[in-house]
């Protein structure tokens, strides 16, 4: 059997197993529970499941391709990924349980739902859902592209890129429509086993194979590639200390309200599962050092990769040094690293639309119809991302630049709004418009980083200033509901205690 056939067969077997696992996960639960079961696993996932699911979301095909590519191109700046994820988990220790309790108390399934509830305006939820979808679609497209590149590479080119894209779309869309969040958590288990095993193997094998061990590898890097080892990294990149600090800070705050993270939070059985997760999830970040270092190892083995090709730094090493079956297994790990996050992204888009947009249509009010409508949206969103992968790849790459920084602009409206009653609808909305406007302006004029600082944090500062100014300049919103109905609080670590001390929440 040729190398391509071996690697492709292994890949095919695992893809079938993935879909089967998704079906198995929801066996006996199909049809019951409606939107809540599908979108947040009936709020019944335990600590371990939430761990693998959230670790799965954060460890995407970017980790295999982009992290190695950044390591190859720039070096040290890529460590911002580890920095913001670790800091983000720390923020999540407080914010996760808070959002979880808020959603459970009011029967909500996502951030758009929360915003609609907080401000008492369903249309605001719909507007935010549309905005969030625009910011999420590029991620789906990036995963489709990432998985396509992986599939094409491990089949040694026998599956063309265009077919590989379609395969990525078909497997993921089919999978998520039938299985929902619970199935994604199950596949995350399979994926984590493969990811940990393959990265641990590569971490040992590659330095031994090419450099006779880590000692020589690091010696060579320190001697020959010093530029790569400190900020701002190689080739006079724009990613200096100020950029590293502001990006880590902004992303750490944004990641806790990112719709996919929130989907993980809301799936938890109780608040303590989330707190314990905040302890163990950062440990997973140690694994991220592997692709980063391997990307730098590729500098010596396959020098001269430029542009998008640098994303293949890690896979060039793999296909260059390993037999076909091993290439196949590593390809499966990378492909599952696309499928799981992509599934959760699609699920979140479906849920947001089902709950916040389509529910405004009276005909779609019942739970089962909401679920069916959400699943339809998933297929449409996936198709849209696939079409754009073929027809307008550059547009989406541009959009993906503003995704994270754009999503950050929801911070005042959502998080500040949930702890501070006075923040008015008009204030929060004005801030959001200004923030998103500034992000788009700076990114599209290629001024990100601006003055060495992350453009999103500049926009967020303006966003917050406008939100506060408009709020104070106008009379308070006339909303008769009591604070306890509108605001969120971190559920007390003591489950039995009645939350009497709500006075502390305003300053949280």
């Amino acid at each position, binding site marked *: 059997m040729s190398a391509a056939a071996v690697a492709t067969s292994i890949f095919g077997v695992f893809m079938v197993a993935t879909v089967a696992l998704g079906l198995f996960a929801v066996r006996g639960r199909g049809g019951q529970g409606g939107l809540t079961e599908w979108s947040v696993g009936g709020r019944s996932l335990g600590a371990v499941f939430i761990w693998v699911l959230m670790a799965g979301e954060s460890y995407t095909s970017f980790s295999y391709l982009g992290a190695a590519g950044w390591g190859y191109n720039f070096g*040290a700046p890529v460590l911002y990924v*580890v920095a913001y994820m670790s800091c983000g988990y720390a923020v999540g*220790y407080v914010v996760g349980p808070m959002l979880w309790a808020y959603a459970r108390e009011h029967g909500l399934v996502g951030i758009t739902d929360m915003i609609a509830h907080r401000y008492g305006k369903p249309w605001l939820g719909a507007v935010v859902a549309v905005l969030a979808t625009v910011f999420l679609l590029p991620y789906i497209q990036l995963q489709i592209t990432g998985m396509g590149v992986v599939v094409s590479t491990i089949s040694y080119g026998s599956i063309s890129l265009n077919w590989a894209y379609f395969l990525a779309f078909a497997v993921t869309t089919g999978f998520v429509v039938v299985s929902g969040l619970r199935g994604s958590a199950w596949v995350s288990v399979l994926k984590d086993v493969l990811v940990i095993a393959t990265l641990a193997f590569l971490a040992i094998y590659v330095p031994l194979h090419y450099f006779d061990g880590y000692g020589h590898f690091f010696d060579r890097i320190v001697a020959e590639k010093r530029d790569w080892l400190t900020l701002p990294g190689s080739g006079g990149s724009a990613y200096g*200390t100020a950029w590293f600090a502001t990006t880590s800070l902004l992303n750490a705050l944004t990641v806790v309200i990112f719709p996919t993270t929130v989907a993980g939070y809301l799936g938890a059985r109780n608040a303590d599962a989330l*707190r314990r997760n905040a*302890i163990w999830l950062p*440990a997973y970040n140690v694994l991220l050092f592997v692709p980063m270092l391997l990307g730098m190892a590729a500098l010596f083995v396959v020098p001269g990769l430029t542009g998008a090709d640098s994303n293949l730094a890690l896979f060039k090493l793999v296909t260059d040094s390993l037999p076909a079956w091993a290439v196949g297994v590593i390809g499966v790990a990378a492909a599952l690293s696309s499928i799981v996050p992509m599934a959760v992204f699609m699920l979140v888009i479906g849920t947001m639309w089902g709950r916040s947009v389509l529910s405004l249509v009276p005909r779609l009010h019942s739970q089962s119809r909401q679920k069916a409508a959400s699943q339809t949206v998933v297929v449409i969103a996936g198709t849209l991302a696939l079409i754009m992968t073929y027809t307008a790849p550059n547009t989406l790459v541009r959009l993906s630049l503003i995704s994270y920084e754009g999503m950050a602009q929801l911070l005042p409206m959502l998080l500040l709004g949930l702890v501070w009653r006075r923040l008015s609808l008009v204030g929060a909305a004005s801030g959001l418009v200004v923030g998103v406007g500034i992000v788009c302006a700076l990114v599209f004029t290629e001024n990100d980083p601006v003055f060495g600082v992350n453009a999103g944090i500049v926009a967020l500062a303006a966003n917050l200033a406008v939100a506060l100014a408009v709020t104070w300049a106008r009379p308070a919103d006339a909303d008769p509901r009591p604070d306890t109905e509108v605001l969120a609080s971190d559920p007390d*670590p003591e489950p039995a205690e009645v939350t009497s001390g709500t006075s*502390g929440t305003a300053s949280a």
Partner: protein
Amino acid sequence: MIRRRPHLLWLLVPFVLYIGALPFVNRVEPVVFGLPFFFAWMLAATVLTPVAAYLTWRGDQRMRAGR
């Protein structure tokens, strides 16, 4: 909230390690077990973050037990 749960301050540890310390740790030497200093520092921070989160959690547990 901080007054009632002062152990939440442990959660600032990763911010100090990853962001606050940047100006002092952005260097190649000294090399730690062969690892360039900046990478060694970031790896240490990654290992210490779970410890900080654990201390926070333990504080919450003690608060629960104490009342």
